[in-house]
């Protein structure tokens, strides 16, 4: 049994006219101790997915309208608020992009760390304090003991993110949701934080759902990757397969949009035309079709399912693309086409 299994999750937000669907039928799993990535551009629904899992979507602004979030077999969406609170912290912990907004600015680091230890683990003041020092040492904060008295604004961005990691780990969760945790950080600090999270997750055998827009970061962190576009998962693969044999033209576009430091400097980048659709104006058929250089008529009319690809049948790689169907089922694309100029001709 997977540690976390999200089934057909659907989350809607209230909009000016009616509602918009930010997460539309998302399913994926995270096994115990595994690091899984959720990648996509802004507005693709990756953060809304994480918030839905944690029960942080609050009506009337938004509502989870369908699906299940099974954590160790229990559906979190059906839990009472009290039961859910028991899962948060001890079962699942979350780290956000901006530690400044998730730390309380008027309380010391020590106070905030010991609070969760006393609340969730029932530790006494003294025990909580010494555990807090241990946690700060674990996230490699120098002079940990003296840092307990610091306020969040007295710490740098990287230090604050370390504190957040310490807080997330404080109750020994089985799963950490890490939502764009290095986006606000400089590249050398990002490298420190990624290394820290990777090491600690491995040591403590904690599973991580790693949410980011940065494919480069994913490559060095996750074992499996889910690519999201316009509220849906459009490709899922082992990390190596995703980067070496990407199946979905959207993934090709993401990979072609970023210059690579390790390759020879070459011609122009190959960006994706246009921009993602508005949630309120979702195109019919494949949601990526309006921007896809390889789309045909079918793509604009019928919605493709997320199914196993014929190029990598035994690798668990899934894609949501009509062109990538097997040729005998009408598919017209292969990974080779990624580098070729798209032909506009209908066969």
């Amino acid at each position, binding site marked *: 049994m997977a540690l976390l299994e999200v089934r057909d999750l659907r989350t809607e937000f209230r909009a000016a006219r009616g509602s918009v669907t930010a997460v539309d039928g998302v399913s994926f799993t995270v096994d115990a101790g595994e690091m899984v990535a959720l990648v996509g551009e802004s507005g693709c629904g990756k953060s809304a997915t994480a918030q839905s899992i944690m029960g942080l979507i609050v009506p009337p602004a938004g509502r989870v309208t369908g699906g299940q979030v099974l954590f160790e077999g229990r559906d979190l969406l059906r839990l009472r608020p009290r039961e859910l609170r028991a899962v948060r912290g001890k079962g699942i912990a979350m780290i956000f992009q901006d530690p400044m907004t998730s730390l309380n600015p008027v309380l010391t680091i020590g106070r905030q760390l010991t609070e969760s230890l006393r609340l969730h683990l029932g530790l006494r003041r003294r025990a909580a304090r010494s555990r807090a020092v241990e946690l700060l040492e674990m996230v490699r904060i120098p002079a940990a003991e003296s840092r307990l008295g610091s306020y969040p604004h007295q710490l*740098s961005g990287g230090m604050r993110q370390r504190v957040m990691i310490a807080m997330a780990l404080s109750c020994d969760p089985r799963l950490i949701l890490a939502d764009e945790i290095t986006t606000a950080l400089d590249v050398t600090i990002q490298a420190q934080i990624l290394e820290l999270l990777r090491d600690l997750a491995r040591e403590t055998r904690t599973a991580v759902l790693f949410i980011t827009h940065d494919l480069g970061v994913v490559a060095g962190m996750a074992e499996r990757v889910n690519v999201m576009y316009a509220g849906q998962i459009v490709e899922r693969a082992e990390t190596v397969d995703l980067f070496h044999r990407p199946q979905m033209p959207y993934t090709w576009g993401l990979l072609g949009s970023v210059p690579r430091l390790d390759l020879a400097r070459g011609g122009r980048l190959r960006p994706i035309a246009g921009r993602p659709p508005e949630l309120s104006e979702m195109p019919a058929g494949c949601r990526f079709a309006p921007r896809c250089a390889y789309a045909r008529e079918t793509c604009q009319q019928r919605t493709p399912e997320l199914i196993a690809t014929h190029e990598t049948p035994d690798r668990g790689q899934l894609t949501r693309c009509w062109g990538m169907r097997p040729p005998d089922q009408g598919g017209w694309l292969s990974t080779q086409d990624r580098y070729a100029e798209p032909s506009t001709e209908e066969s």
Partner: protein
Amino acid sequence: MSQDPNLVRVRDLAVDFKVPKRGSLLPARLRAVSGVDLDIRRGEIIGVVGESGCGKSTTGRAILQLLRPSRGTVTFDGTELTTLRRGPLRAMRRRMQMIFQDPYASLNPRMTIGELIEEPLLVHSDLASAGRRAKALETMRLVGLSDQWHDRYPHEFSGGQRQRVGIARALVSNPEFVVADEPVSALDVSVQAQIVNLLEQLQEELGLTMMFIAHDLAVVRHLCDRIAVMYLGTVVEVGVCEEIYRRPRHPYTKALLSAVPIPDPVVETRRQRLILTGDVPSPLDPPSGCRFRTRCWKAQEVCATRAPALTATAEGHQVACHFPENSEPRDQPAAIVAGGR
């Protein structure tokens, strides 16, 4: 007399900010840029990279005299800008423009796109209304905005389109020199690539000289001819882009390259990371001597006492370090093979 190959010459540039000081009525002096020397050649794109607070944006603004430097000189095409009075400076400004990071904050929401793009022409040209309109439309087409957007307002635009408007505003007065301050940092990757390609194409078509300020080293390498690496208000290394990426001489450059994630899991597991410890020190109280020494694995006594000067290397770039990395040739960019400490 032959033309100077450098369009912009910066010498010993320093910029101070006043910040409130606890327990004192007098403000403290924060030196954001401290003794920067930089030459910008005609027709090149020079990338300026470094982490937040390193002074890269401040340097860009000080070159354009949007911030007045506290010390040093900035020469633009032979004219010294730092001592120029308002009138003549305004005339020079037509020739040097800026593209800002945040296309949301830099466009007045109550003006149409046409008005926004024409606005610089009110100051920098004596074109009549019809002429300004024609010039604005021409510039819109140049940056890939169709005529139908002329009478629309910024809120109707996406981030990428707004950045195109920002670029059009900078280019409408036919400048020779453009400072682009993190122009793609706020954009999603797919849109970012569109803007990078546009800047590349515009630079070639118009023969612009450009200073491209960014923190994304992969984008800088893709776009730029030369690169300047800054740390805590100083330039630590300058040179031809590919040279520096292959053979970084300054330990900071090496660490910076090593920290960039590479979108390939096989490369990522193979490569040896060089992870810096600690944070960038406060510019209110920078370390003595070499400013990087508190995070440098090669630091010795001399680094604390004497600030290293920017010195030419055998490969023809410049580095400010007492113990620069050696320069054996490599097949691969240093990002991959950066070794241990």
